[in-house]
């Protein structure tokens, strides 16, 4: 608890805001990569308190939002099979595939269970040797260690009935994609603190150099976010483009080497489609061939499934920082958390959901 109250201290928050106001002399567009940061900003109304020179745009760091529709459809196809217990992080339950979500699959008789950790899924596999247990292994670098650990644990236990449907993505390739996009407006980044807890921040220096953008590793509490913004503004005003760490209580330059080692032991870099954005080279992880026995796509023959999305919402532009949720004509009318048109409205980390939940009638 100590860590919560300290980093939400109103006096210190106003002190940092004042320092940002003193430092800034011109408009800057800064992207927070992570959906968790977007929500912290909106929930605490930090955007209302910042000087008008700072325009925050919201990045693609919401794992639920960017999981491609094919993977959702594959998940539903597997989850509908009578021999399968399909396990998933809670947030994935409501994400629409081509024509339904996992809640609908469950209502139609599928055995779909929310778990808090993939290791719980392994436990379910141990307890149900006659059933096939599948875990929907999605996420960024943050969830990767636990997801690969479940595979390693299943292997150690000799489980024949456990597999994972992998849809992993990585932050640095997405930053390349955003910065090299012709319409890019982003001039500085708050890098995602939890991703860097695992990966460190050694991967970011080439990006800062190549595109001349400051990148500041940033946490999730109000003080963390403002400290990250202050450091980014300092760099922008001083025309520096370096990688700095505003989250040293958790993040080191090297990151968690043991976590990185097990990720590399089980996963391999691969091209990955991002929902709403498109295919980004080497932006994902998939299982190494030696772990193919644990690949649910192979086990249930869904690897070739193809799906198409219909063009209605602007989630793609929002995830790239080109538009804001309020720019969308459907926002808050046809598209709400109960009737989401896009994944950004579904996830508790999605930018549209954050806007809808905390500020839609205020601005």
């Amino acid at each position, binding site marked *: *608890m100590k860590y*919560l109250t300290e980093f*939400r201290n*109103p006096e210190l928050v*106003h002190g940092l805001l004042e320092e940002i106001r003193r430092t800034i002399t011109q408009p800057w567009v800064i992207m927070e990569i992570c959906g968790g940061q977007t929500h912290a900003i909106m*929930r*605490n*109304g*930090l955007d*209302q*308190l910042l000087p008008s020179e700072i325009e925050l745009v919201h990045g693609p760091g919401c794992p639920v939002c960017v999981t491609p*529709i094919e993977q959702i459809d594959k998940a539903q196809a597997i989850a509908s099979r009578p021999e399968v217990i399909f396990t998933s992080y809670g947030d994935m*339950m*409501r994400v*629409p*595939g*081509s024509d339904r979500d996992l*809640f*609908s699959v*469950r*209502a139609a008789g599928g055995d779909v269970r*929310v778990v*808090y950790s993939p290791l*719980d899924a392994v436990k379910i596999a141990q307890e149900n040797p006659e059933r096939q247990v599948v875990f929907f292994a999605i996420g960024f670098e943050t969830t990767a260690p636990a997801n690969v650990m479940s595979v390693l644990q299943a292997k150690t236990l000799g489980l024949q009935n456990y597999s994972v449907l992998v849809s992993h993505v990585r932050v*640095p*390739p997405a930053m*390349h*994609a955003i910065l*090299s*996009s012709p319409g890019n407006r982003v001039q500085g980044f708050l890098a995602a603190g939890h991703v860097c807890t695992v990966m460190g921040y050694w991967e970011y220096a*080439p*990006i800062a150099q190549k595109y001349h953008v400051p990148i500041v590793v940033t946490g999730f509490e*109000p003080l963390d976010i403002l400290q990250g913004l202050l450091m980014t503004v300092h760099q922008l005003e001083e025309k520096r483009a370096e990688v700095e760490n505003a989250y040293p209580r958790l993040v080191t330059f090297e990151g968690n080497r043991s976590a990185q080692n097990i990720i590399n032991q089980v996963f391999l870099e691969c091209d990955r489609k991002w929902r*709403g*954005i*498109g295919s980004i*080279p*080497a*932006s994902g992880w998939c299982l190494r061939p030696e772990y193919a026995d644990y690949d649910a796509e192979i086990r249930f023959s869904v690897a070739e499934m193809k799906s198409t*999305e219909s*063009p*209605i*919402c*602007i*989630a*793609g532009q929002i995830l790239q920082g080109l538009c804001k949720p309020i720019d969308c004509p459907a926002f808050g009318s*046809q*598209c*709400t*958390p*109960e*009737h*989401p*048109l*896009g*994944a950004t409205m579904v996830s*508790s980390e999605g930018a549209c959901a954050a806007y809808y939940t*905390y500020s839609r*009638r*205020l601005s």
Partner: protein
Amino acid sequence: MSDQPLPVMQGPVCPLSLAHQTQIVIGHGSGGTMSHDLITRIFLPAFDNPTLRANDDAGVVQPNQVTRLAISTDSHVVWPIFFPGGDIGRLAICGTVNDVAMSGATPLYLTAGFILEEGLEMVVLNKVVASMQLAAAEAGVHIIAGDTKVVQKGKADGLYINTSGVGIIRDGVNISGAEARPGDMVILSGPIGNHGMAVLAARGELGFQADIQSDVAPLNHLVAAMLDAGQVHVLRDPTRGGLATSLNEIARQSQVCITIQENSVQVQPTVNAACEMLGFDPLYIANEGKLIAIIPPGDVKAIIEAMHATRYGEEAVVIGEVQQAPQGRVLMKTNFGSTRIVDMLAGEILPRIC
């Protein structure tokens, strides 16, 4: 890594909307907007009458010139059957007693319907029934009729209990979600989120131990003390959907804006820590022994004092006030001086909890 080719940008793409209008899904029971949608589309058109349309926790009817009755019903399907601070039996009594009390009525009589699954241990049923009797005695109500059905193994989860209750509304009391007026103050009877998090922790699925007790309690004596002390416009117990959803219901029914102060809403440290770990907002977590009261400003002092003198109102505080506009909205002043919307719970964010 730094020399990757340009990605292929597809342009705007998006999936189709999912309205969940063809099949019941778990979110329809969340107490949030999906539940409201179900009521509006299915139940209200079929059963339509002025009492039902009032949309309060209990239906208020006047069978003759002198008596106004409040009637309510509630089904309980909580799992596990026993959890820290309570069990399905205590919940079944308190849930209905509180729904009746929230119309300002004195609850008097309850009925109880049991749906039992084949194979249920008799000792479990005994324990639940004893707990019901204790809770009924505490509330001062009598269970005067009942029903039992047994279903085949696998067709239910242990036992489900439905209770209905009736109470008499005292003269001069007119309490409804539609009675909030600009200038009124909002009182919350204590810290929030205990019941939902206690049940979740009791399922043993959180991966950590949390010493959280459910707050399940009968609130009728607290309500009586409040009505003795002053005028009350609105009462509501923020159960499923939590404080945020109940405040939104009131704001919509009364066509007012309710603004609350972030730092005045109390959450126990253990509840807060569990919520933080799971990414839940305590504003949306169920309570079973708390109430929200909306009262004229002149009566605040007397009512708060009366609440503090009762067992379940000791920690009552003013958390906000009622304003004219924006109508139908709940806003929160954050600890940093900014303002944000507090919305209704949309669909299911948690496993079923009551």
